[in-house]
């Protein structure tokens, strides 16, 4: 690891002042450190100064004024997943977090840090290879190289990396808002505008300014989805691996079992969590049948393109969407992690009775 200076911020203002002082080079906030320190050891991240933002009191999880929930930026992923209100009102969030990383890392990693983690593309991590994200203009090793884990949607000629988070896929599906601050003031960034596509600036993962600090992530009220939400993660092994494809799916069903609202976002397929409102619209007003789920899968994957190695991801993602929507209909919260254990028994979800006839023919 290269040398750097370290300071501990005691207030948000102190942290913002330190972040704004880039006189000698990049200054980065450090919270959990699970991704940043790893990148520094690999010489991918080269900050000249770190500001510890763990002691700012931003680790609370509390109700928002709008009737949703505010997740403190420095609340740990594990604490968020097991928070009683998160589990009761937003089981999709718990399921996504518990599908990611290892228990030790979830104990350390923060909510804000989870949003800012970098891609796990091998070429991005290997400073001996070209990478437009790490060093703009040097080329992309993955486009002509090993691209099994790479993007099938929204990629550019410059970069085909994927965003690695599970948590963010659930946040995208629920339409969260990211609250940020800088010495200039405060901003609220809608989740779909927080992460960006690579385009010709793949070095920029997000729309967060260099001097801005995430203070909280706000979940809007979404209780109508709690009974029928699922995080489905498909990966190379049963635990502690990044997604090849993941799906956050949620349904709001009326008394007749017709879809009143739907949420659908994909992970592991693009530079950001992939949510297509038109795919959700396909489901609204429809009976939750395999045919409707197929139609939603078609729409969300419109424009999907293989990079060679990852051609399998297109049919995989299609099937995963259909399966996830079926699991959501059945009230199965996950296929993986602690909430996805085959022996999982939870408090029965409150919600309209399931119309078993609709799922009978599902493959």
């Amino acid at each position: 690891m290269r040398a750097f200076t370290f300071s501990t911020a005691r207030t948000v203002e102190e942290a913002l002042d330190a972040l704004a002082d880039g006189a000698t080079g990049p200054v980065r906030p450090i919270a959990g450190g699970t991704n940043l320190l790893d990148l520094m050891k690999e010489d991918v991240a080269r900050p000249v100064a770190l500001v510890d933002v763990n002691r700012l009191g931003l680790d609370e999880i509390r109700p928002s004024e709008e009737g949703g929930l505010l997740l403190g930026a420095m609340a740990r992923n594990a604490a968020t997943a097991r928070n009683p209100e998160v589990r009761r009102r937003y089981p999709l969030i718990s399921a996504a977090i518990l599908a990611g990383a290892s228990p030790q890392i979830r104990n350390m990693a923060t909510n804000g840090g989870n949003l800012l983690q970098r891609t796990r593309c091998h070429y991005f991590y290997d400073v001996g290879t070209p990478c437009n994200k790490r060093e703009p203009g040097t080329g992309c090793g993955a486009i002509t190289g090993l691209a099994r884990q790479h993007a099938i949607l929204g990629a550019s000629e410059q970069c085909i990396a994927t965003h690695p988070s599970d948590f963010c896929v659930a946040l995208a599906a629920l339409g969260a808002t990211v609250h940020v601050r800088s010495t200039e003031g405060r901003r609220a960034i809608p989740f779909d505008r927080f992460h960006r596509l690579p385009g010709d600036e793949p070095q920029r993962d997000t729309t967060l300014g260099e001097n801005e600090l995430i203070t909280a992530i706000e979940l809007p009220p979404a209780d109508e989805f709690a009974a029928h939400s699922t995080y489905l993660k498909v990966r190379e092994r049963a635990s502690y691996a990044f997604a090849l494809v993941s799906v956050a799916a949620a349904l709001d069903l009326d008394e007749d079992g017709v879809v009143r609202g739907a949420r659908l976002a994909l992970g592991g397929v693009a530079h950001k969590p992939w949510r297509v409102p038109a795919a959700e619209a396909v489901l609204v007003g429809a009976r939750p049948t395999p045919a409707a789920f197929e139609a939603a899968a078609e729409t969300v994957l419109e424009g999907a393109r293989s990079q060679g190695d990852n051609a399998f991801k297109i049919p995989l993602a299609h099937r995963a969407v259909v399966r996830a929507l079926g699991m959501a209909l059945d009230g199965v919260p996950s296929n993986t992690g602690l909430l996805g254990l085959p022996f999982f028994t939870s408090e029965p979800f409150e919600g309209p009775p399931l119309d078993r006839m609709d799922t009978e023919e599902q493959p």
Partner: protein
Amino acid sequence: MGSEIESMAPEAAPPVTADRHNVELVVNKVPRRLEVESWVTLLDLLRDRLDLIGTKKGCDHGQCGACTVLLNGVRVNSCLTLAVMQDGAEVVTVEGLAEGERLHPLQQAFIDRDAFQCGYCTPGQLCSAVGMLDELDGAPDGDDAVRVREMMSGNVCRCGAYPQITQAVLDVLTASRGEGGAA
């Protein structure tokens, strides 16, 4: 070490060679006060400065779990945190699990169940299992063996002693329930 770092530093920035901080830690119940450079990980502090070499540096990237310790009672990868970030913290390493000559129930269970071969991952497995037992309160109900496997998935054992490790953890879990609480 200083000159090496200097030569690697980016040209635009003045080299940082001596960013040192005082850190106070309670390690295995012993108060410690040390001066460390900012870039020293908690793992390196434990091994290189305190000679607590039970905690292992396997991958140094948070992938293997061999460096797992209890930080304020919570299991973490000590390779992925800086010592300077942990000023005021309480750390328990594998050296701190036993009470004098009396092994921690998990240590005894690992011996009874033959839950290791080379033993390199064992300190991390033990600390992880101790932390895991405290986390079960927040976990959903279900089959214990399946849960233990999932919750121990942050610790890799390349000898493949997983069945015995799972059994050892289950022994302690079962015994602690008999006593009316987690270990």
